[in-house]
């Protein structure tokens, strides 16, 4: 099957999946007690029936559920994610203003975790049982077992409060007037703590997985054959072992991309990072249906896109995959 046909079939499947996700989400959200009108009335500190009725009409909650669903699905098909009455803005605008911050943080965390995780795993696998191996694997276990929010708080206490090296929250220094390179550096400084916090867990997972996978592949017959033929060790490590050992890591990376948004909720809350993880969390607490559905849909799209990308990477690493599939 050619890559083009493969992509086309995946895209068609994705659209069907997305529509199913949208319907499912629509009903799931309504299972939670309370609706946006009740929340807003509650926050206003005073309310009467007129006020509540006004809100319900505004949100379209006075319509039967199936009518609401029909309106919502028709909007989705036309790429309209609706309006967030709570935030007084179109949902798509809210999401796309906040998406870059999340992509920057999760992207950085993603790259960091793969880079350090794989390198750590390779270093550990080269001399199993050595001090180097034990050290790397102990660190991995610690990061794997420690809750994200605790790491985040400790990092803030150490690097921001005690040492004063790194900013504790925010995307950039508010009101600094920085531009160009200076601004980029400022953002980078703010990026360190949240992205490291988010990266540590997966870094640990990759390190362990790479190590195990390397050791497994190293004992296989084709590696022995290569050794017997006199191929240099460096080349065996890179071309024969690592290449094959990376496949499970790629699988996991695909999964990680999906989980990143979930992890981002916590990290973005602790570090006051203005991304969509927090947008989603706030929308959930406020029962801001349109916004919540919008974030769900966009993150579902991202996950599907990452999955397709993963498949392509698979085919690049091992061209046999996908043949005849």
């Amino acid at each position, binding site marked *: 099957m050619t890559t083009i046909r493969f992509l086309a079939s995946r895209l068609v499947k994705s659209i069907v999946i997305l529509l199913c996700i949208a319907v499912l989400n629509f009903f799931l959200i309504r299972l939670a007690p309370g609706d946006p009108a009740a929340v807003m009335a*509650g*926050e206003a500190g*005073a*309310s009467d029936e007129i006020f509540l009725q006004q809100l319900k009409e505004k949100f379209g909650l006075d319509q039967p559920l199936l009518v609401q669903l029909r309106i919502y699905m028709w909007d989705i098909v036309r790429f309209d994610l609706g309006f967030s009455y709570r935030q*007084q*803005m179109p949902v798509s605008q*809210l999401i796309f203003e*906040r998406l870059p911050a999340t992509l920057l943080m999760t992207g950085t965390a993603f790259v960091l975790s793969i880079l350090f995780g794989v390198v750590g795993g390779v270093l550990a696998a080269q001399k199993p049982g050595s001090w180097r191996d034990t050290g790397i694997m102990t660190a991995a276990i610690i990061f794997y077992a420690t809750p994200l929010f605790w790491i985040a708080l400790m990092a803030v206490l150490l690097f921001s409060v005690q040492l004063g090296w790194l900013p*504790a929250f925010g995307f950039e220094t508010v009101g600094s007037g920085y531009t160009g390179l200076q601004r980029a550096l400022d953002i980078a400084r703010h990026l360190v703590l949240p992205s490291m916090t988010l990266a540590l867990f997966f870094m640990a997972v990759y390190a362990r997985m790479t190590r195990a996978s390397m050791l497994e592949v190293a004992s296989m017959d084709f590696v022995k054959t290569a050794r017997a033929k006199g191929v240099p060790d460096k080349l065996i490590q890179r071309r024969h072992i690592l290449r094959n050992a990376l496949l499970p890591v790629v699988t996991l990376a695909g999964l990680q991309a999906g989980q990143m948004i979930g992890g981002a909720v916590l990290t973005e809350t602790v570090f006051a990072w203005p991304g969509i993880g927090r947008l989603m969390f*706030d929308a959930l607490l406020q029962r801001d249906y349109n916004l919540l559905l919008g974030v769900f849909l966009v993150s579902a799209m991202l996950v599907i896109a990452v999955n397709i990308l993963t498949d392509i990477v698979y085919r690049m690493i091992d061209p046999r995959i996908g043949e005849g599939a």
Partner: protein
Amino acid sequence: MLKTIILSTVIALTAGPALAESPKSGGRVNVVVQPEPPGLMLGLVQNGPTQMVAGNIYEGLLHYAPDLSPQPQLAESWTVSDDATTYTFNLVKDAVWHDGTPFTSADVVFSVDTFLRETHARLRASLVHVESITAPDDHTVVFQLKQPFGPFLGIFEVGTMPMIPKHIYDGTKYADNPANNTPIGTGPYKFVEWQKGSHILLAKNEDYYVEGKPHIDEIYYHVIPDAASRSVAYETGKVDVLPGGSVENFDVPRLTALENTCVTDAGWEFFGPLSWLWINTRSAPMDDSRFRQAIMYAMDREFAKDVLWNGLGKVATGPASSATRFYDNNVNIYDHNPEKAKQLLAEMDYDGTPIRLLPLPYGETWQRWGEAVKQNLEEVGIPVETVATDVAGWNQKISEWDFDLAFTYLYQYGDPALGVSRTYISSNIAKGTPWNNVSGYTDDGVDKLFADAAIAPSDGERQVLYTEVQQKIVDDVPVAWLLELGFPTIYRCDIKDLVTTAIGLNDGFRDAWLDR
């Protein structure tokens, strides 16, 4: 003959602690806003964070001193007719909207009679007493009441009656007006930008009608969702002001011990936040007043104040906060007396039916408080089952009367007719909304006393009625009062005159200046 209450503008505007030192101009202040407000258009949204930010953009006709006496703002003086039914306000002459349009009496009539009547649930309840609002000239507004309404001069503060620009909103669909995202008021600060999820920036209004004010150039409101991170933001110097309720109470002693740090619980007098447990009086055993009294005797409220609230606030004596007008403490005082509680329970043959307690999902302090109350009640033999919810679920359960006991706190707005009676009168029982009489308490005597007191012609007559109703309610215990909450504002001591009025930070930056 007019009974005249004209306050000299000159005296009122220069009075206050600012006289001691001469204010310096300039500088920037960083403030925490929590949670992020849903919008800044004060006529459409009135939740706490919105009022705190937008109170510096919009203005009311009056504001209130800490003793709740009315002070001039957009109205420089006012007169009340002898029969207390005609209120005439003289507006300041040189106020302009932030877009340069002059502020006139037409804006007042539009704001109150057209805009807020449609959008503002709380004001709407007070406007029932208003027959007409007219503007004889550009700078005079006359409110004609149907009958005397005691608390009338108490509804002109910015959160209750913000002035809305007629030239922007007249004839539009208010909720969809694009101007909602760039609010325009007459206040000391102008809206500059709002980066959602990050910060809101306000800048000094150079054309403000009060000579020499405001003093500070820029105010940044930072959105920091995590309570621990808000403490860190203060500790690391990123923010200078932590408004009441923005950090967990157990962090307050540590933060106030920091260098150059001041703390005050002033600035909440107008709101008089009073906490209590809703008691669902519709079902047994809560329908028995002896059971409700037993709850009052069982609770150790001094402990809650000292341990959970760091000693801030006061133990509540009844339905009115001590900062509210017509407060009377000549009532039965419920001390911590578990023996008396047990005695009352025995007397009514309480069978040990477990009751459900709904804590307030507003953070750690409230969770701990729920645990403390649970322990107190179980000590006297009332088994308690705690129900966990988030804010939306809590609202739903309260509105649908799906609870036995539930934590809450409400504002009183300075006058029993505005913020107290709504909790106890039977005409205010309506399923589906969270802030009315959700206890389901009905008593004809209480209804009549509240109704008469609201429209009694003189303060003396009102006091007699309110004293009587407070005594009656305290004996009946339709809700179990907890504390008059003391919310600490934590700030750097070099910010001067930050809290000068009864609504504190909500309009605080009009007077504040930096001694740096």
